[in-house]
């Protein structure tokens, strides 16, 4: 059986990746953000899992706009880094784990989750930026194979926060019967509060974000109780991405230990946050 050893919630703002790619992390504009990541990165560097699951959304790069899956899974051996318009990020392509993908797919479908399968998939900043937050200097390859789980957070109606959490719980059950890995890390990405368009563009809600960073560890039910319209109101029309952290959280134990959190405004037009949860040492 496989065990989730940690969960990492993190923003996936493109400019965070761009700042790293352009060596601006020590710039006064960026250093507070990256200083906040440091303790998490150190802890993670000593706990590389056999495989990771990364929950993210595509931003009109890897998937045609006529097709919007509520939940999808990639089953490829390799995921190419997408060219979002001006050349792909200079980071490694992602090695997949088809065996784990197929195991998850079969168990999740049998558990009543109606996943869409992507046999091939290019991954955009929603996927690669969280990998960079985890592993700033991957060299030729990311630390382990990664399985993508994609969530629709752009097209109304997004899945409910409760459904996202339930998907995570089902992932946890599926991993319990998986023999192909011992240790698993899981990443939930997106957020924190932000809104890109409309008269409310630039909206940030630090009270909500702080509440979220606490509750994701200790009271996820408080977060699953919120309707999608409340996420849009409280976290902004793009801040609803935070529901993807609940997939991550659902795959973990009822009690987890917070290793580290970080919060910074702004990264581009966004509040950026991070929560690193240890699944093995709850009190």
């Amino acid at each position, binding site marked *: 059986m496989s065990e989730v050893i940690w969960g990492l919630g993190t923003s996936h703002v493109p400019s965070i990746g761009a700042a790293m790619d352009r060596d601006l992390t020590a710039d006064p*504009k960026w250093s507070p953000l990256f200083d906040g990541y440091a303790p998490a990165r150190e802890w993670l560097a000593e706990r590389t899992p056999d495989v990771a699951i990364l929950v993210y959304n595509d*931003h*009109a*790069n890897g998937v*045609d*706009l*006529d097709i919007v899956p509520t939940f999808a899974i990639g089953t490829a051996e390799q995921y190419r880094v997408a*060219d*979002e*318009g*001006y050349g792909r990020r200079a980071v490694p392509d992602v090695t997949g784990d088809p065996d784990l993908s197929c195991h998850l797919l079969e168990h999740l479908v049998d558990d009543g989750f109606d996943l869409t399968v992507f046999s091939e998939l290019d991954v955009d900043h929603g996927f690669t930026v969280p990998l960079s937050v985890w592993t700033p200097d991957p060299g030729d390859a990311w630390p382990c194979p990664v399985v993508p789980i994609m969530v629709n957070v*752009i*097209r*109304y*109606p997004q899945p409910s926060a409760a459904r996202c959490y339930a998907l995570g719980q089902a992932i946890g059950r599926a991993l319990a019967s998986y023999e192909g890995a011992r240790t698993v890390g899981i990443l939930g990405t997106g957020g924190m*509060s*932000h*809104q*890109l*368009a*409309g*008269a*409310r*563009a*630039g*909206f*940030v*809600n*630090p009270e909500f974000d702080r509440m979220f960073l606490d509750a994701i560890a200790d009271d996820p039910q408080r977060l699953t109780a919120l309707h999608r*319209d409340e996420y*849009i*109101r409280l976290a*902004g*029309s*793009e801040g609803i991405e935070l529901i993807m952290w609940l997939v991550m959280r659902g795959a973990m134990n009822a009690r987890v230990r917070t290793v580290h959190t970080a919060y910074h*405004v*702004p990264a*581009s*037009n966004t*509040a950026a946050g991070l929560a690193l949860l240890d699944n093995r040492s709850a009190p």
Partner: protein
Amino acid sequence: MTTRSDLPGTYVFDGPSGRRGRPLNRMLQSLRTEGARADFRADEAAYCLRFELSAEQTTAVLERDWQAMLDLGGSIFYIYKLAMMDGRSMQYLGGVFTGMTEAEFTAAMAAGGRTDV
């Protein structure tokens, strides 16, 4: 996109928005490749015609009326691809949507974001 009456100043990309915006968003999504961008630059109106944009959508694109693109069903993730092509930042767009200059908008974000809207 649709502005929900219960949430002023916020666009929700739902079914009706998606249908209305489809030609516009398809055109904007196509700008990911350099070949498409060259075609677009060579004759923007013809390029819009090829994707069957409405007259209003074409005008919004030609005039870089970013607000109108939103109102005509554009999704910000697609609109941003055109902005990138023009060398415009997300802060510039934020300024356009909120009646600020890019510098003002950037300063508002640096000061902790717009917490009062």
